């Protein structure tokens, strides 16, 4: 009987990992497992494109942010484009996307941590580096007396609470090593 209870509890725990809503619930370990990389740096460019696709439909808007900085796992300099659905080409042409980072989070000049994953098709046959879980893959940082701090987004996100950038970097490096050893 007790074994059954343990099995049921384990099943429930496993089940809870398949969280729904609009974006997947990924803790930092799961985020590192799923992502192809994490970069810390400054948003230096922003571009919005429109795709009209015969199968996926008209008016597919995508925003690409160029983040120039350092790969958090390797410590090597890195400039990476990260893309998510939504955005405005002009003040009158484009869409708000419910899962996209807020306009304030996307500003050029922001210092951010971004998790990304290479995708062959993000819709409309657009290939590129998807910003993991849209707004859930972009975290702003702020300078403090004790160094730079990454702002957490709350329960269910890879960075749920504020954390020192150095600490986050160390955790990502450890998790990346574990990921590489598993391969």
């Amino acid at each position, binding site marked *: 009987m007790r074994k059954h209870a343990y099995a049921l509890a384990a099943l429930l725990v496993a089940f809870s990992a398949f969280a729904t809503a609009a974006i997947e619930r990924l803790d930092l370990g799961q985020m590192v497992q799923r992502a192809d990389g994490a970069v810390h740096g400054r948003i230096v460019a922003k571009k919005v494109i429109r795709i009209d696709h015969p199968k*996926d439909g008209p008016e597919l808007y995508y925003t690409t942010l160029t983040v120039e900085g350092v790969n958090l796992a390797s410590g090597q300099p890195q400039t990476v484009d990260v893309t998510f659905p939504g955005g405005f080409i002009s003040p009158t042409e484009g869409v708000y996307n*419910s*899962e996209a980072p807020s306009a304030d989070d996307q500003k050029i000049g922001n210092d951010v941590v971004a998790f990304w994953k290479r995708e062959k098709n993000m819709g409309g046959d657009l290939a590129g580096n998807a910003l993991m879980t849209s707004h859930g893959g972009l975290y702003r940082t702020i300078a403090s007396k004790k160094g730079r701090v990454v702002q957490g987004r709350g329960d269910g996100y890879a960075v749920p609470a504020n954390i020192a950038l150095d600490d986050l970097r160390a955790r990502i490096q450890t998790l990346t090593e574990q990921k590489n050893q598993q391969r």
Partner: protein
Amino acid sequence: MQHARFLVPLAVLGGAAFLALPTRTEAYTTIGGNLGLAQRDFRVFNNFTDPTANDNTTPDANFPGATGVALTMWKANLEWGSRLHGNGNGDPTQPAGLGSGGANFDPSWQGLATGIGGVNDNIISELSGSSGGTLAYCETPIQDGWRIRFYQDAANWSDGPGSPGVGQYDLQGVGTHELGHALGLGHSTVAGATMQAVATVNGANERTISADDIAGVQAIYGVAAATKPIISNVVQSGCSLTITGSNFAPTGNEVWFTRLNNASGDPLKVTNVASAGGTTITLTAPTAAGPGDLLVKIPGSANSALSNAWPVSPQGGTAPQSYCQAAPNSYDIFGATMAYSGSTSIATNNFTLVTNGVPPNAACLYFFGPNQTFAPFGNGYRCVGNPTTRLPIMNASPFGDAAYTLNFTTSPASTIPANSPRNFQLWYRNPAGGGAGFNLSDGLQVTFCP
């Protein structure tokens, strides 16, 4: 005693410190704007590819005409409605029933769309590929509509009606979340809310909106007004519908239906409808009304002018139905096929039989009867069994169309009873087709209303 001297100041300081503490606020957010009465329609373009997204093929009387993804999204939107949809049944995971919003908001189901549509066409569909853990999204601004997309490769989508299996994602739960965005809600920080961006439990729980979600939709649309029209029952008798409820206007009501084959998304509206005592509306369902929902709008443009949605299946869920088989002729390899225009209401008296693909200018006539058959006849097939009644002989147009408007005030159309199916077919001459020199269209079964 000396300690007592410090107690009051300490209490004051403690109270001040408590008040100065930052409060942690957790609540819904809004994205700005709301869906006006012209944007209450929604449709589904069923391009979903996972077999489990469309394996619920069991019809549900509370959602007439819908199965699979369509049924799922209909339920998802109704949960935001002001009060229970019909008797509230239809979602086995939700004993409290569908329709929990309690706000001046109710959606109008408009069936299946034929395409993905633009960003303001209020259509839900699938999008190919995946985007790094994003399951679905809603595109706004909402002032002129919205569009919802589910990523094809993001999940193994399940249409229920029970909870999804292990490894599957719940279409209805995610749909309820995305439709909350369409209504104007942003993400909530409240654990367990449907509008939380990342949930803590698997899918089906999000089908049921939480107190925080309800507060959000009520903040946008207002708490359901005391003057908001309420439908409490709809009784169908043939094509006649009797709507009972409260707060209907004496005159000038609109009755909104789900439109058959809806290309625009706009509800089918019967205007200038009177009520009896503000509690009863009786009307004949228009021919173009399909199975879906019925709503009553009283005069005015406020969100509170529109009632809750009530499931109906006008004409018993069947519009005039084509049946049998057309045979090729000298003009059209698909043969002559029947259609119709106008109302099936005898009182309206404008029902027109239409046939396309007839040899131009051919002599022809319609005939009808209560029985169906299927037997070779001439170069085609006879679809109407004996006894039959002939309508006047006429000629097809130079473009190969034959049309005849029934006049129910004179014989023989005056002999057609209400609520009893009649089968129609076109006979036409076609010497150029060889053989017997004549042919027939397919059949059309029509049940007329009083």
